[in-house]
């Protein structure tokens, strides 16, 4: 069971907003890059996010570039999962590959700062602040196999090949 607070974002949160190009030179220094996570969407986010919190966004989260640094630094900031109405496809696949759960649900029901409990196995999100219970779309089976191993590198180390 994951427990934490919701940090709300709008729609079309691009990878440029998550990991801005002006910090391109920090991509080989991920702890330093992580200090700027989501900076151009919310300059305060990196300083207020706590370990176990959730990023909760509207639709098309993660559109844009293939930079895997985007889900990596979200995870490094302590975020337990990203919840959104929909995700851009490269970001979704990258998040699974780095072991960051990405959950598709009706995020309109969740308020800024709400206390959430997420049961990944049962597919249930409980908003303790407003008492609402939500379900999220099942992560595709092939991707669940990768996520269950903690990401693509641990998956390949264990299986040596794609056994999806």
């Amino acid at each position: 069971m994951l427990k934490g607070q919701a940090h709300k974002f709008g729609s079309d949160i691009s990878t440029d907003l998550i990991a801005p190009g002006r910090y391109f030179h920090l991509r080989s220094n991920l702890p330093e890059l992580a200090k700027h996570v989501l900076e151009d969407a919310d300059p305060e986010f990196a300083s207020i996010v706590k370990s176990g919190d959730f990023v909760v966004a509207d639709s098309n989260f993660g559109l844009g570039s293939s930079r895997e640094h985007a889900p990596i630094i979200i995870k490094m900031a302590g975020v337990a999962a990203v919840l959104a109405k929909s995700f851009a496809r490269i970001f979704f696949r990258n998040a699974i590959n780095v072991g960051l759960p990405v959950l598709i649900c009706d995020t309109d029901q969740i308020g800024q700062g709400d206390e959430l409990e997420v049961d990944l196995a049962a597919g249930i999100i409980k908003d303790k602040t407003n008492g609402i219970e939500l379900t999220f779309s099942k992560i595709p089976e092939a991707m669940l196999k990768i996520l269950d191993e903690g990401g693509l590198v641990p998956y390949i180390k264990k299986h040596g090949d794609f056994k999806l």
Partner: protein
Amino acid sequence: MGKTLVEKILSNKSGTDAVAGGIAIAKVDVAFVQDGTGPLAVRQFDEAGFAKVANPDKSILFLDHAAPSPNQQLSNDHMLLRQFSKNTGVQLSEVGEGVCHQIVAESYASPGDVVVGADSHTVTAGAFSAVATGMGSTDIAVAMALGKTWFRVPETYKIVVNGKFQKGVYPKDLILHLIGMIGADGATYKALEFAGDTIDAMSMVGRLTIANMAVEAGAKVGLFASDETTRDYLIKQGRGDSYVAIAPDADAVYERVIEIDAGTIEPTVSKPHTVDNTALAKELGDVKIQQVFMGTCTNGRLNDFAVAAGILKGKKRHADTRLLIAPASRKVLSDAIAAGYIQTLLDAGATIMPPGCAACVGVHQGILGDGEVCLSTANRNFKGRMGNPDSYIYLASPATAAASAITGRITDPREVV
């Protein structure tokens, strides 16, 4: 049941019956990274315990996003990639050779290929009838090592375009028009397949521009059937023997069909800060611009500079508008010099930059100041994209960009030609 282009190619490359919605594990023909995604791919390659690359002749490391390097951190990243090339025998495309997607078009992608790159605009090679898509660094590290990757076979939207473009209208206007119509997530997880008499008559350069921007509607790939135009382009690059004719089956199943009359499209612009925020150039009013940027994997090819030079010949850029030019590859630059386009652009007051991504990614070579406005021929106008979150990016065709460089405000090219 008939197959779409993506189903056909993935069936062939997976040795299975690939049908939309299923999973296909496919052979990878071309795999690449660039200097923004490559260092992480190298680390993941090492972390996974790989030592060998499956197909080093068609695995490429491109130094294009920060080229030449603007600072010591990125110089060190370049060194890491050069060393990986020495260790594994994969190809290195050095600083100044050009943008990865243009070099893949010139030297690597062929009809029927699976092309994967750690760059979202890998979709560009869809113009060759290749299943070409962007992935993250880890996926590409694994694809380089194993020579294969997995796909969820996408459903396909067929985009049927018929009719002739009006004067001053180009393939860039068509793809901006389409993205404005269906939205930045209008084709998420889907394949786009382009057809119709406008597409049949279109040059490879035009098809590359359109395929390049498929991802801006969320698509996994933007595909074109291969034809004589594809074959001629490959022959010109010295790769005629790699031509294969590929077309979708007549009874292929499409999730959606969108029809567009090319004759109704007018010069189109994406306004800040999303690509689907489109408007007609003539309706924008007085949008003053401090910078015009012409280049990139979208519109940095010879034909694009031919159009721009045609409009700028004998004219000068507006005194308040910088004009930055970055050819997409060394070959494009060389050909543009031979054709006289570079001299024309220099005479008009342009700054010529080395082949590469240049100002597009906000790393170097044309970062905007606070509150500044840029009109770019690139594919993305997200907030902060060009290095400053307090700046504004509009996207348009090379014709609109050239016309606007003269007037200093966003201008319908039909006003000046």
